[in-house]
C-alpha cells in the first residue's frame, strides 16, 4: 500500500508514442506498473509495448474501463491541454512530467483540479513511486528500496541521491512524491505531509527542499502547530546560491527577500525539524528521530 497510488492503480500514459513516453512506458511496465492504456492524438490504434493507444481519454475509458491515474509526457506547448483533458475525464491522480509549461497555464489547471478534488503531481516532477509496487514516473527504480520512510521532494536527481543514501543505511521508502521544480505545483509540502500522516506504513518523513518560494517555511509553521505528528527531517539545497539568480529550476530563485537558505533552515529548526548539512547526513538524522519513537 502506498500514498495516493499502489500496485492496483490503473495508469494511463498521455504522450505514450513520443520518445520519452514510450521509453518510460517500457521501464514502468518492467517495474510492474499497471499501465492499461496510452493516448496520443492521431495515433489511435497503435500499441506501445503491448499497451493500446487511443486518440482521446474518452475512447480509452470506453474501451478499457476506469482509469485511476495518468502520467503526462506531452511537450510543454500542448501539456496543459492534456492535463485539462485528464481533469475533465475525472482521473483522480495526474502526474505531469513535462518541464517548461507556462506558469499561467499551471495556475489554471492546478486551480481547476483542486475544485474537482483531483490531485496533480508536478509539473516538472520525476513522479510518484511506491517501491516494490508501482512507479508512475521516470526515477531510476533500483535506488528506491521498500520501507517506511516517506520522501517528499522539489528536486529530481537530488531525490535519487538521498534515496540511495537512505537505502545504503538500511532504511526503505514507503512512497516518494516528487512535488516538481516549478514555482506553481499541484501539491506542496503541507499537502504531501498530510498524506503521509494518514498512511499507516510511514513512520517518518524526509523533506527535500531548495531555495526559492516559501513552501518550506509554510510547512514548518504548519507542522509546529500540529497536535500529533510524525517525525520529519530535512535537507535544503542552495545554501551557496547567490540571490536573484535562477538556479536551473524555475522555482529556485530567491526573490522579494524571501526563500533563502537561512530563512528556510531557521523555520524548520524552530519547528523541531532537524536539517542535514549534506545529503549523506540524512540517514544519521533519521536514525536519531526514529530512536525516539
Amino acid at each position, binding site marked *: 500500500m502506498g500514498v495516493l497510488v499502489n500496485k492496483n492503480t490503473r495508469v494511463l500514459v498521455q504522450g505514450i508514442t513520443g520518445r520519452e513516453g514510450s521509453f518510460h512506458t517500457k521501464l514502468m511496465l518492467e517495474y510492474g506498473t499497471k499501465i492499461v492504456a496510452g493516448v496520443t492524438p492521431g495515433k489511435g490504434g497503435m500499441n506501445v509495448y503491448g499497451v493500446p493507444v487511443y486518440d482521446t481519454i474518452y475512447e480509452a475509458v470506453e474501451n478499457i474501463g476506469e482509469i485511476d491515474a495518468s502520467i503526462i509526457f506531452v511537450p510543454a506547448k500542448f501539456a496543459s491541454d492534456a492535463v485539462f483533458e485528464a481533469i475533465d475525464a475525472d482521473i483522480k491522480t495526474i502526474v505531469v512530467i513535462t518541464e517548461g509549461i507556462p506558469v*499561467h497555464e499551471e*495556475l489554471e489547471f492546478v486551480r481547476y483540479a483542486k475544485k474537482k478534488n483531483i490531485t496533480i503531481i508536478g509539473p516538472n516532477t520525476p513522479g510518484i513511486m511506491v517501491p516494490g509496487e508501482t512507479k508512475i514516473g521516470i526515477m531510476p527504480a533500483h535506488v528506491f528500496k521498500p520501507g517506511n520512510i516517506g520522501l517528499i521532494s522539489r*528536486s529530481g*536527481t537530488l531525490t*535519487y541521491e538521498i534515496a540511495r543514501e537512505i537505502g545504503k543505511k538500511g532504511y526503505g521508502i514507503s512512497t516518494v512524491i516528487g512535488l516538481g521544480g516549478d514555482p506553481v505545483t499541484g501539491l506542496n509540502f503541507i499537502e504531501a505531509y498530510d498524506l503521509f500522516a494518514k498512511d499507516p506504513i510511514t513512520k517518518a518523513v524526509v523533506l527535500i527542499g531548495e531555495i526559492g518560494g516559501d*513552501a518550506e517555511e509554510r510547512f514548518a509553521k504548519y507542522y509546529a502547530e500540529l497536535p500529533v505528528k510524525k517525525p520529519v527531517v530535512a535537507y535544503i539545497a542552495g545554501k551557496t546560491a547567490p540571490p536573484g539568480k535562477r538556479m536551473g529550476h524555475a522555482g529556485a530563485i530567491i526573490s522579494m527577500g524571501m526563500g533563502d537558505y537561512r530563512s528556510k533552515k531557521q523555520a524548520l529548526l524552530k519547528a523541531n525539524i532537524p536539517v542535514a548539512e*549534506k545529503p549523506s547526513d540524512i540517514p544519521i538524522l533519521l536514525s536519531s528521530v526514529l530512536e525516539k519513537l
Partner: protein
Amino acid sequence: MKLYEFEAKEIAKNNGIPVPRGGIAKTPEEARIVAEKIGGEVVLKAQVLVGRRGLAGGVLFASNSLEAEKVARELFSKRVRGEKVELILVEEKICIDKEYYLSLTIDRSNREIVYLVSPLGGVEIEELVKKYPDKLLRIRVDPVIGYKPYMSRLAAKFLGLPKELWPSMHKIMNSMYNIMKNYDADLVEFNPLVKTCSNEIVAVDAKITIDDNSLYRHIEFAEKYGRELSEMEAIAKKLGFSYVELDGDIGIMCNGAGLTMATMDMVAYYGGRPANFLDIGGGASRERVREAAKLLLKHDKVKVLLVNIFGGITRCNEVARGIIEAVEETGVKKPIVIRLLGTNEEIGRRLLEEKGYSVFSEADDAVKKAVEIAKNLSR
C-alpha cells in the same frame, strides 16, 4: 525575462494606463530632441535591468533641453550598478501629489494571482512586506475567474483615493490583469503610481517580467532574451544549459538543478569555493557533455573540474565519452574529479579509468578530493 522600463511603459500605454509623455534616446543629441518635444522640465532615466537604479545615480533631472543633453552625456558615460547605460528614457517631469505602490504578481504558495497595494510609493516591495505589513493590502484573484471591479474599490479605499478617481483605478487594475494574461507576465508593477497635482493617476515607473516558459509565444521578446546575462551565461544558455557564474575556483558540472546546488553546497561545506553552477539537464548526450566540459575547462577561473552525475535518464558512458573528448579537443590539462553513479556506470568508469582518471562512487569523497586539489593549487 525582465523588460526595460520603456518597454513596460509602452505596453502599459497601449493598454490604456496613463504614463508620462516621453521618448527613448540612444545619444545625448537624441535626448535633447526628445526634451525639446516635451518642453519644460524633464527626467532622464537610465534604462538598465538592475534594481534600485535611482539610488545608484541612474535617474537625473534637467530643466530644459540643452541641460538634458548635458545630463544625458553624463549618464551615458556611467555604469549603473555595473551595467552600461545604452538607452535613456526622457520624460516630462510629473508634479506629484501622492505616491503609491501597485503590483500584480503570482503567489506561488496559494497558486493564485495577487494584487499588492500600498500607500507607501517608492518603497521596495521587500521592505514593504517586512517592515510595514499593515500598510500592504493583498487582493487575491482566482486565476480561473480573473479580475472583478470590486477589487479596484478595495484598493482605492485602502489608498484613500477620492471617489472621482475610482474609475481610473478600475481601468488601471483591469488593464494590469489583461497585460499579465496577454503577455504571460509574472509581474506587473507600478512603483510609484502617483496622484498628480492635477488629480490624475499616472504610472511614473513600470516593471514587467515575462514568464520564460512562455517566450515561445512572444517572439518579439524571445529575440531579446538573454540580455541580462553575463557573457559566459549567454554562451551556456545558447548551448542549452542552466548556468550561473560564481566567485570560486572549482568548476561544477552535474545533472539536475537540485543535485547541482547540493554539490555547490558540499564544496562550500568541505572548505572549497564553487566557480559556477552548471546543470547539463536530463538525458544529456555525449555532445552536450563535451560542450559543457569544454566551457568549464576553458574558463580561466576554473582550477579543478568537479563532475557529479547521478545517471537516471542520463547515461554514464555518454558522460565519460563527453569528458574525454572535451579534454582531447581543448588540450587543457586541468585536474578533473569525477563521480559517476547510475545508468551504465561500469562502462563509463572503465572508459575514464583507461584514460587515467579515478572515478568516485560517493559524492562526499569526490567533493573532498576536488577541494583538496584546489587548495594545493592555490598554495
